[in-house]
C-alpha cells in the first residue's frame, strides 16, 4: 500500500501502567473504508483519538495527510481537524441546546463567513442526504438514537472532510436504522471519495462495507487485509474473532493470579 492517508510508526500508548499499544505500526489507505475491529478494551476508540490528535502517544509518531501530529501546535492541530477530519461519535454528541438545523450549521457558521442564505442551502442539502430535512426544527432530545446519529453524520460532513472516523456507528441500533447507516457510510465514501475509518465489533456489517479490515488484539495488529482474506486467515485469533467464539487464543479470563490460591487466600 503505497498511498496511505494515515500512518503510525512504532506507536506506544499507556494508561497508567497498562500498555494499550506497544510498538504498533499501521498504514491506512486513502479513499477506502477501513474497519478496525477487535474485542472490547483493545483500544479501538483510543486509536481514533490518537489519530484525531485528542490523545498524544507516549512514543512513536502518527502522521495524517503527511503531517506529523506531534509536531503541531494546538492551533495547527485545530486547523488540521477543521480542514480534513470529521468524526461521528457513538452517541452522536449533538449540542443539546441547539436544534437539528443549528447543529449541522454549527461548523459552517463557526468556520466560514458564508451568508445565512447559503448556509441554509448547505444545511438542507446535508440533511436531505441523511433523509432528515423534515426534522430540522427538532431538538436533539426529541430524536431517536438512529436519527441522532444521522444528524451527527450530516454535521461531521458539513465541512467536506477528507477523512471521516466512525466510532461504533452500529452499536445499539435497530436493524432498519443500522441498514440506513451502512448505506450512508458506503454512499458518502463513494460520492465524496472520503477516507473512512470505522471502529466496530459488528463483524457482519463491517465486513459488508469495508474495503479493508484491521483486527487489533492485545495492543497489536493481528490481521490486516480484505474481509475475504481475513476470513480465510490461518491466524487462529483472527478466525476466533470473526466467527465470534467465546474462548480461544483471546482468553475468556482477565489476567489474574492462580484461581485455587486466590480462593484459599480468603481462609487466612
Amino acid at each position, binding site marked *: 500500500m503505497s498511498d496511505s492517508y494515515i500512518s503510525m510508526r512504532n506507536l506506544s500508548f499507556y494508561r497508567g501502567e497498562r500498555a494499550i499499544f506497544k510498538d504498533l505500526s499501521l498504514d491506512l489507505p486513502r479513499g477506502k473504508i477501513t474497519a478496525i475491529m477487535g474485542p472490547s478494551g483493545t483500544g479501538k476508540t483510543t486509536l481514533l483519538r490518537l489519530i*484525531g490528535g*485528542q490523545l498524544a502517544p507516549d512514543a512513536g509518531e502518527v502522521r495524517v495527510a503527511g503531517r506529523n501530529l506531534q509536531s503541531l501546535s*494546538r*492551533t495547527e492541530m*485545530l*486547523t*488540521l*481537524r*477543521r*480542514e480534513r*477530519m*470529521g*468524526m461521528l*461519535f*457513538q*452517541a452522536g*454528541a*449533538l*449540542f*443539546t441546546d441547539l436544534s437539528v438545523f443549528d447543529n449541522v450549521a*454549527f*461548523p459552517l457558521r*463557526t*468556520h466560514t463567513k458564508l451568508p445565512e442564505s447559503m448556509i441554509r442551502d448547505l444545511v438542507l442539502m446535508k440533511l436531505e442526504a441523511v433523509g432528515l430535512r423534515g426534522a430540522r426544527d427538532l431538538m436533539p432530545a426529541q430524536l431517536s438514537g438512529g436519527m441522532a446519529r444521522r444528524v*451527527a453524520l450530516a*454535521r*461531521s460532513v458539513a*465541512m467536506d472532510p477528507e477523512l471521516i472516523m466512525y466510532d461504533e456507528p452500529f452499536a445499539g441500533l435497530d436493524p432498519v436504522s443500522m441498514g440506513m447507516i451502512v448505506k450512508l457510510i458506503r454512499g458518502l465514501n463513494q460520492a465524496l471519495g472520503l477516507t473512512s475509518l470505522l471502529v466496530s465489533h459488528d463483524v457482519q456489517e463491517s465486513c459488508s462495507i469495508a474495503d479493508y479490515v484491521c483486527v487489533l488484539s492485545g495492543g497489536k495488529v493481528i490481521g490486516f487485509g480484505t474481509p475475504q482474506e481475513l476470513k480465510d486467515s490461518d491466524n487462529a485469533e483472527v478466525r476466533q474473532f470473526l466467527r465470534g467464539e467465546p474462548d480461544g487464543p483471546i482468553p475468556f479470563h482477565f489476567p489474574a493470579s492462580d484461581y485455587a490460591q486466590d480462593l484459599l487466600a480468603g481462609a487466612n
Partner: protein
Amino acid sequence: MWLFKQLQAFGQQGVRAMEAMGRAAFLLLHSLTWGGPGSATWRDLVKQIYSVGVLSLLIIVVAGFFVGMVLGLQGFTILSNFGSVSALGTLVSLTILRELGPVVTALLFAGRAGSALTAEISLMKATEQLSAMEMMGVDPLKRVITPRLWAGIISLPILTALFSLVGIFGGAFVAVDLVGVDTGAYWGNMQAAVQFYEDVVKGLIKSVVFGVVVTWIAVYQGYDSVPTSEGIGKATTQTVVISSLAILGLDFVLTALMFGGI
C-alpha cells in the same frame, strides 16, 4: 515497609495535586483571553450572563433583604443596651458593605451558579460534546469556558452591589418601620460614616476576587471531571465545597490586606 508505603502514597497525592493545579492554571490562562479558532461571540457572553447572573437575581435579592433585617434587629437589641441606636445605620451598612455582602453573595453564587456551571460542563464532556467540538476544529476552552468564566467575573460584583443595596434597605425596614429608630439618624449617620473608597470599593474588590475564584473552580471542576454519572456528582459537590472554603479563607486574607490590622 509500611512507612515507605505511606510516604509513597503521600508523595503521590502531592504530585497529583500539583498536576491538578497546573491544569487549572493552564485552563485559566488559556480561557481568559478571547479569540482563536471558533472562539465565542458577544452573544455567547450575554447568554451566559443571563443564565449565571440574571437567574441568580431572585435568591440574591431575597437573601440580601433577610440578612439586612436580621442585622437591623440584632444591632438594635445590642445597641439599645448602650443607648446608641442612632449608630444602627452605620453598623448595618458597614457590616454589609465590607463583609456580608461580598461573602454571602459569593457563597450563594457558588451554590446556585457555580454548581450549575460544573454540572453543565461535565455533562457536555460526558456526552462527548466537547470532544465533538475539538474534532470540528473548535477549541472548547475558547468556545465554552471563556464566556462562562467572564460571565461569572462580571456578574458577581453586580450581584454583590445589589445584595448590599437590598440589605441596607432591609435593615432600614426593621430599624425605622418596625422598631422605631429615627429615619434621619439611620440614614444620616450612615452617610457620614460610610466612605466610598474605604467601604464600597473595597467590598467590590473582594467580590471581583471571589468572582474569578468561584467561576474558575466551577469551570475547572466541570472540565476536569471524570465523565461518568458518579464523576459529575462528585465534581458538582467539589465545586461548592472548595469554593465555599476558598471564599471564607480569601475573605480573611483580603480583610487583613485591605482593612489592615495585621
